[in-house]
């Protein structure tokens, strides 16, 4: 236990403390809904267009509307310039982001249409998919879509012996020496939670934890997501000031 008390994060944060969060709604005028969300230096903006006609026709779903997420990063959001255009990572994140948001969206009454949600990472310092989900959730609400509840996401990490909330890039890149070699030793667990039911809509794990520790990670995420939801609500209610 003393070890936990002594553990200090590189930026001085407490174990269960997120970086400074900023959220603002209605930032892209052309879009039906839009928002900005940032954890410290990880900044995402999201724009929603729709429901609108989906072309080509064979992609349409006659039972309900479709949510399509498009995750992208600016070339200058990362240390080493990212070449423009989609890659496997962005395709995967687009997919899981959509899955994280679908459960709250009630677009079954808009058959054959699409809701396009574009997420752009302007500045990346780890936890970008979580910042993206938070921005997208706000943008979807701002777009006036039928939505049961909001979605909040945060990354839980394990560096060394402790679980920490909202991994920064430095923590994500945490390495230890093993047999004279530097190996990656941080575990990244992005989790998203629904605001009212508190059900989990996204969970991924990358690294190594004890099976018995999963419960603790989820509990930590839930606690953090509740705080994030408060901030999201405030941002939506402040739309009149924008």
């Amino acid at each position, binding site marked *: 236990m003393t070890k936990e008390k002594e553990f200090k994060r590189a930026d001085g944060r407490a174990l269960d403390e997120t970086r400074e969060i900023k959220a603002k709604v209605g930032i892209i005028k052309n879009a039906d809904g839009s928002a900005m969300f940032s954890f410290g230096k990880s900044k995402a903006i999201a724009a929603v267009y729709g429901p609108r006609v989906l072309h080509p026709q064979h992609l349409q779903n006659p039972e309900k509307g479709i949510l399509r997420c498009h995750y992208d990063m600016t070339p200058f959001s990362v240390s080493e310039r990212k070449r423009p255009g989609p890659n496997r990572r962005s395709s995967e994140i687009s997919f899981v982001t959509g899955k994280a948001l679908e459960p709250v969206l009630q677009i079954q009454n808009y058959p054959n249409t699409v809701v396009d949600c574009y997420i752009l990472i302007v500045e990346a310092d780890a936890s970008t998919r979580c910042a993206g989900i938070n921005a997208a959730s706000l943008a979807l609400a701002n777009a006036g879509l*039928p939505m049961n509840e*909001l979605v909040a996401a945060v990354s839980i990490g394990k560096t060394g012996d402790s679980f920490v909330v909202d991994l920064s890039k430095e923590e994500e890149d945490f390495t230890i020496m093993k047999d004279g070699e530097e190996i990656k030793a941080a575990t990244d667990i992005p989790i998203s939670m629904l605001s009212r039911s508190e059900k989990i809509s996204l969970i991924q794990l990358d690294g190594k934890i004890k099976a018995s520790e999963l419960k603790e990670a989820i509990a930590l995420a839930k606690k953090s997501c509740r705080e994030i939801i408060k901030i999201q609500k405030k941002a939506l*209610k402040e739309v009149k000031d924008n």
Partner: protein
Amino acid sequence: MPYRRENYTNREDMKEEETREMPEEIDHEKSRDIVVPGEILAKGKEILPGEGTRREGEEIVSSRFGLLDKTDRLVKVIPLSGAYIPRAGNTVIGQIVDVNFNGWNIDVLSSYQAFLPVMECFGYINKKDLTEVYDFNEILVVKIRAVKPRSIELTMKEKGLKKLEGGMLIKVNSARVPRIIGKAGSMVKTIKDETNCNIIVGQNGLVWIKGERVEDEIIAKKAIEIISEKPFEVGLTEKVKEFLEKNKKK
């Protein structure tokens, strides 16, 4: 309430639902709270969940982002934003995007394409080339006859429906249309009278303004934008009247 997928072709079917065509029911001057999806709006079994809300046990919960409208008997959430949801009976303004042999494809700024068949126009049309009747990018004021799974069917067979010539076309948030029209059309009438313009407000958020002078049209446009862009202002009617008075002197 979400629109149903069955076609309802007459207004009788819509009686039970809240529609945006009945602004008289909403007191626009009341200051309202903004609510978010998932927020608890009321508790108790006696209160009814209206549009934009749902019941979960004892609680009535918001199903969208909007303004709370709560009485002892009914709770609803008035949309602040969002794409236009087409409903049969709505009068809308649309722009011709394609011309076929038997009608026109029309963009009504909605989630679906709309179609106006030749048969649904007034008079007898005997032109091989339909662009001679209504051409690309021209605008029409039409009525929605039916909403089908993939398309919206339009008609012009009613008084007042026609092609719009001259004037200007602006787009506003369709959620703000009831406010722009006002109680029994009072708001839009005030703007019409003060600017000497003819104004047609489509339920889909497209508004056509035609005046004697372009300057008058611009004043009407600005007045409408004041309403559209300030959904939270109380005393909006006064503010608009003030603005129109000020500009009348020009």
